[in-house]
Structure formats: structure tokens, C-alpha cells
């Protein structure tokens, strides 16, 4: 019997969705447009975050150790650094390693003749972070430790990327809020038309003792149908657009030189699908609730 009621509500919901074809179509188009813009920012944001994560694994902080620190003190320092929250890895680079790596970089060993005896490079720890936003905090904690001579890091790159990521996040949230407001408005307006067309039926339902939940049911279903259809259409369009853009810039020389890969749409598919479905269903339910408020009194 319960199941019977559910199938009744769904059937009625579908019926009314497709009765108001023009209005349903218009609200689906508007919802798709707003969801598409939101999706665009969402996938750009995802890519920036992914690039930041890639940089985080490469970008490091160089911590130079005091010349007169003993091996034991160096060992302790390493352990202290690793214990700081936000530190991913701390690799010891000895004086010899530093010299050798400089030799390789410059490619001409003759320049460094005699340096082996009096190596001017200090020993250091190369530290990578788990989260770039912790950069400054980690640095100040490291500076407070003993036997630390100096810290070198590319603060500016890190800060710029971080503020870009923040900017995109704020924009995405603003667009999301606009999307929700516009969509709720348009869905509730569409459903109001159906409610108005069926006000006779609604009033009869009330007189024979149907509960408000039962009366509301088909309209909630209608809102959810509009939301889910819009979500699926937008997902397909976004996927096609994204892949087209990726094909034209994906193998650009610039990106390859930077060494960063962009995300493929299939990597984000379930995330975007999930976000869209939650939005579609949520907006549908809210929109129908708003449109029904007036009619359920009596």
C-alpha cells in the first residue's frame, strides 16, 4: 500500500512536469545555464587546486644548518622538523651533496677545484609541505629551532597561487549562491503554474481529508524532476565543452614545460555529478515548497 502511494506521487509528478511543457523547458534552460557557469568555475577551481597540490609536492623550503652543529644535533633538528604539523618530508642534504649538485648544475667540474677541502656550501634540510597554506607557519616554527642558520623558500610563487585559489573559491561560492537563488525562483514559479492549474484538484483533496504532505508530494516530485534533468543535461554539456578545451590547450608547450598535468573530465565526473545532483534535488525541493506555501492554507 505504501509503495502504491509512492508510485502515485511519482506518476502525478511526471504528468504535471510535462503538462507545462513551455515553462518546464524554460526553467530547465535557465537552470542549465546557471549550473553550467557554476560548473565552469568549479572545474577551473578543481584544476588550480590540483596544480597547487602538484607544486606542493615539488616546492620545498631549504633550511641551512649552522656550520658548527654536530651530527647528533643535525639528527635532532631533522626529527624536530618532521614533527611540525604540515611538514610532508624533510630530506638531509650534506655539504658534499650540495657541492655535487652544484657541480652537476653548472656542468664544469674544473670551476670547483680545491673546493672539496674547503666546502663553502652549508648542510641543509629540504622540506616539502602537505599544504601550501601552512607555509609561513611552518617557517616560523622552524626558525625557532636550534642550529638553524637561514631559510630559503619561494614565498611569492606559493602566495600567488594560494591567493588565486582563494579568489576562484570565493567566485565559485558567489556564483553558487546566485545559482541557488535564481533556480529556486524559476522552479517555484514554474510549479506555481501547475499548482494554479490544479487548484481545483488541490481544494478537493483538502476537503476529502488529504494531508498536506500528500498534496505536496507530486509538486516536490515535479521540482526534483526539473532539477535532475537540468543536472544531467548540464553535466553532458560541461563534459563536452571541457574535453574540447582540453584538446586544444592540453598539449600546449607551456603547460608541458611547467610540468603540470590538468585533470581529465573523467577524473572529476563523479564529483561534478554528485554536486549537480545535490543542487538539482535540493533546489527542486525548496522551489516546490515555496510555491505551495500559499495554497496549503485552508
Amino acid at each position, binding site marked *: 500500500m505504501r509503495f*502504491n502511494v509512492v508510485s502515485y506521487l511519482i506518476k502525478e509528478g511526471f504528468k504535471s512536469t510535462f503538462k507545462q511543457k513551455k515553462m518546464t523547458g524554460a526553467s530547465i534552460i535557465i537552470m542549465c545555464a546557471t549550473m553550467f557557469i557554476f560548473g565552469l568555475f568549479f572545474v577551473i577551481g578543481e584544476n588550480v587546486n590540483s596544480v597547487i597540490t602538484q607544486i606542493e609536492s615539488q616546492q620545498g623550503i631549504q633550511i641551512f644548518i649552522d656550520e658548527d652543529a654536530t651530527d647528533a644535533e643535525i639528527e635532532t633538528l631533522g626529527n624536530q622538523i618532521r614533527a611540525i604539523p604540515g611538514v610532508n618530508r624533510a630530506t638531509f642534504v650534506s655539504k658534499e651533496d650540495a657541492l655535487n649538485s652544484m657541480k652537476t648544475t653548472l656542468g664544469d667540474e674544473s670551476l670547483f677545484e680545491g673546493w672539496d677541502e674547503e666546502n663553502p656550501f652549508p648542510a641543509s634540510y629540504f622540506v616539502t609541505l602537505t599544504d601550501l597554506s601552512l607555509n609561513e607557519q611552518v617557517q616560523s616554527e622552524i626558525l625557532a629551532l636550534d642550529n638553524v642558520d637561514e631559510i630559503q623558500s619561494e614565498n611569492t610563487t606559493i602566495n600567488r597561487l594560494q591567493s588565486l585559489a582563494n579568489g576562484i573559491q570565493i567566485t565559485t561560492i558567489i556564483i553558487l549562491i546566485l545559482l541557488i537563488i535564481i533556480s529556486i525562483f524559476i522552479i517555484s514559479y514554474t510549479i506555481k503554474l501547475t499548482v494554479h492549474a490544479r487548484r*481545483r484538484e488541490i481544494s478537493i*483533496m483538502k476537503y476529502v481529508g488529504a494531508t*498536506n504532505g*500528500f498534496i505536496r508530494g507530486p509538486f516536490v516530485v515535479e521540482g526534483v524532476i526539473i532539477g535532475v534533468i537540468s543536472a544531467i543535461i548540464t553535466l553532458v554539456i560541461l563534459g563536452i565543452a571541457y574535453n574540447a578545451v582540453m584538446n586544444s590547450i592540453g598539449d600546449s608547450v607551456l603547460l608541458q614545460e611547467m610540468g603540470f598535468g590538468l585533470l581529465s573530465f573523467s577524473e572529476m565526473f563523479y564529483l561534478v555529478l554528485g554536486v549537480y545532483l545535490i543542487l538539482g534535488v535540493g533546489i527542486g525541493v525548496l522551489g516546490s515548497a515555496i510555491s505551495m506555501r500559499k495554497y496549503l492554507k485552508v
Partner: protein
Amino acid sequence: MIEFRNVSKKYETGTEAIHNINFKINKGEFAFLVGSSGSGKSTIIKLILKEEEPTSGNIIINGKDTTFLKPSRVPFLRRSMGIVFQDFRLLPDKTVYENVAFAMYVVRATPKHIRRQVPMVLSLVGLANKAKVYPNELSGGEQQRVALARAIVNNPSMLIADEPTGNLDPNTAWDIMELLNDINLRGTTVVVATHAKDIVDKMNKRVIRIDKGNIVRDEKGGYDEV
């Protein structure tokens, strides 16, 4: 069954529709609510249905004071009443059978119960052979019979009719009234708001007469007797 205790209703516009009304309709009774339009009849019907709230006083239905009934319980109050209107209020895109079944559907009756109950009430109102017909193919009297079938299909303990014969010719009106009497004889309390004088005279039932928001007469008899 239905009891009004010192009930007054003043609308927001300032008009006082009824003033300090007291009456009691017992279980199984048949009562007419008469008066010219604007007398307060419709307000009394609306108060019984809890479509409107009284400004003061208490309305007791089936032994329960509905004054403080929670809005979420109102649907369940209405399930104890069948309601019939002057304009029938049938759904034009549903057949006679579906119109009646609809009332059972929305109170979540089982399909088995619906299949058994609907043909039974349709034959009771004399429309067993019109189950698959749409309302616009029926005469006014037949449409009102469908509305009656819908009102009683859930076995309510009372039937409230607001001007049920207002849109019908005298002969058809009389048929409907006889049907209401039949329903009453099966144990259902019936309240009919009307200003059809000849019918009220002919039925010779209890008459509650409202004038300018007051009960001016409450006794068995015809429309105008004092």
C-alpha cells in the same frame, strides 16, 4: 455530533458574519440550515469544515473541541465528513469512477478496498452504468450524484451539503434531496444549507434559520413557519 457554543465570527474586513450562535445537531439527525444569502449560513459551514476559525466560542465535533485542533490534524477531522457543494466540484479529466476513487486514493485506501467500495456507492446513487463516463457528459443532477458518491465513499459519520440543489431544476433537486434522505436513513448525520423553500417545506425536517448572523428559529417544520 456538531455543537456550536457561543460562536461568533468577525472577518478581518470588520463584518460580523455570525453572532453568539448556539445549536447542537445530534448523531443521525437531518437538519436544514436556511436563510437568505449573506445571512451567515456559509460561515457556519466553513466553521464546521474548519476552513475558518471562530473569533470566539467553541465548536465541538464528534465530542472533540476543534478550537485548538492542530492544523496537521485538520485533514483527519475532514475525513469524518463528506462534503457536497453547489457547483459539484468534479475533476473534468477523470471519469466518474476515478472521481470517486480519487477521494479514497488521497486518504490512502488500499486498491482492493477501492475496487470494492466505488461500484457500491455508485450503484447507491444510481450511476452504476456511468462509471466510465466523464463529468461533462452528465446532466447536472447526475454530476451532483457523483459528488454525493464521492462524499460518502469513505463512510463519513456526517454529510455537509452547501446549497446542493442550487444549480438544479426542481425535479432533479428533489431526487438529490431524496438521496440525501436515504443516506441519512443509513445512519449518517446530514446538514444541508439551502434556501430552496419548497424542498424544505416538503421534507419537514429540523430547520435552523439564520438571519443577520443570529439563529431566529430552530424547530421541525417548513421554511417559513414561526
